[in-house]
């Protein structure tokens, strides 16, 4: 099976509702520094149930889009306090559409609110994290092992991890 498209609303630097995709067998995400490429990887990790600490955020609520004052310093002019809206969105969600090799369409969705509560939906129905994760494991998506997600800056450490860590990783996939 494979990941076909992603929908997100107010997730990190993605304001409002956006649809991303389709994803092909080999898709490349490109763009300038600070555009939001790693945030897109965070969106994929988030919808799979990865904890916020792995998504460069100390609290889940940091994952919700925040506008805030923009730094519009222009040569010759000072000042930069525009659009200082403290009234940003109160929730964010990501939905991943996954097609199994038998042609079934699965929808995984995760929603967070400003008070940090997480809600999981599988094919539109609210469910527990355990059941949600079970459905992912049926597709061989083992989030605990995370051997298929390589975050920015982490690749070299994989080669020099200790024998203990490597053993634990092999245990998680066996």
């Amino acid at each position, binding site marked *: *099976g*494979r*990941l076909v498209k992603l929908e997100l609303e107010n997730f990190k*630097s*993605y*304001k*409002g509702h*956006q649809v*991303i*995709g*389709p*994803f*092909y*067998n*080999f*898709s*490349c*995400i*490109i*763009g*300038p520094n*600070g*555009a*939001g*490429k*790693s945030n*897109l*990887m965070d969106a*994929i*990790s988030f919808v799979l149930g990865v904890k916020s600490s792995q998504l460069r955020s100390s609290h889940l609520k940091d994952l919700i*889009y925040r*506008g805030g004052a923009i730094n519009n310093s222009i040569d010759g002019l000072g000042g930069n306090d525009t*659009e200082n809206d403290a009234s940003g969105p109160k929730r964010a969600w990501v939905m991943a559409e996954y097609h199994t*090799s038998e042609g079934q369409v699965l929808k995984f969705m995760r929603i967070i609110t400003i008070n940090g509560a997480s809600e999981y939906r599988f094919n539109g129905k609210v469910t527990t994290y355990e059941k949600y994760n079970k459905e992912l494991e049926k*597709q*061989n*998506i*083992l989030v605990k092992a995370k*051997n*298929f*997600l*390589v975050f920015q*800056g*982490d*690749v*070299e*450490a*994989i*080669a*020099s991890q*200790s*024998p*203990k860590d*490597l*053993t634990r*990783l*092999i*245990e998680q*996939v*066996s």
Partner: protein
Amino acid sequence: RYNLFYSAFKHMESKIQSIYEELTRTRTSANGPVLHGTAYLSLEDSEEPYLDGVKYHAMPPAKTFRDMDHLSGGEKTVAALALLFAIHSYQPSPFFVLDEVDAALDNANVMRVASYVKRHASENFQFVVISLKNTFYERAQALVGIYRDRDVNSSKVLTLKLDGEYEN
């Protein structure tokens, strides 16, 4: 538990060499021989494997046998990718997401890694790769371009299928 671990280890052990070979194959000159690296996994304590640990060794082509710690940044990246793909061969997750794994690679290694991904990407082994290097992303089937829309202070997305179709 021991049997599960052991069959996983044996499987990866059998795969790691051919994967690393494919990632390190270099022709030294136009008519010269094709060199490649050597990689293997070993059990520190083969009586009780999950007591002590699995050690990973990788030697780039025409290099001496040294500790993994002495490898350069780029050599470590290639060795790491080979290990990841070997683990995947035992327990194939349907997709990989890789965030600028090519940052430390020189052009020759970027091409080898991108060609490996292109060769192995399929319906059941999907790759989503973030890269800044055109030597990498020009080999993809499709591009997901992210830009910042300053007017609305938000990230925006464009998708481009590389054989010409344009979707938004």
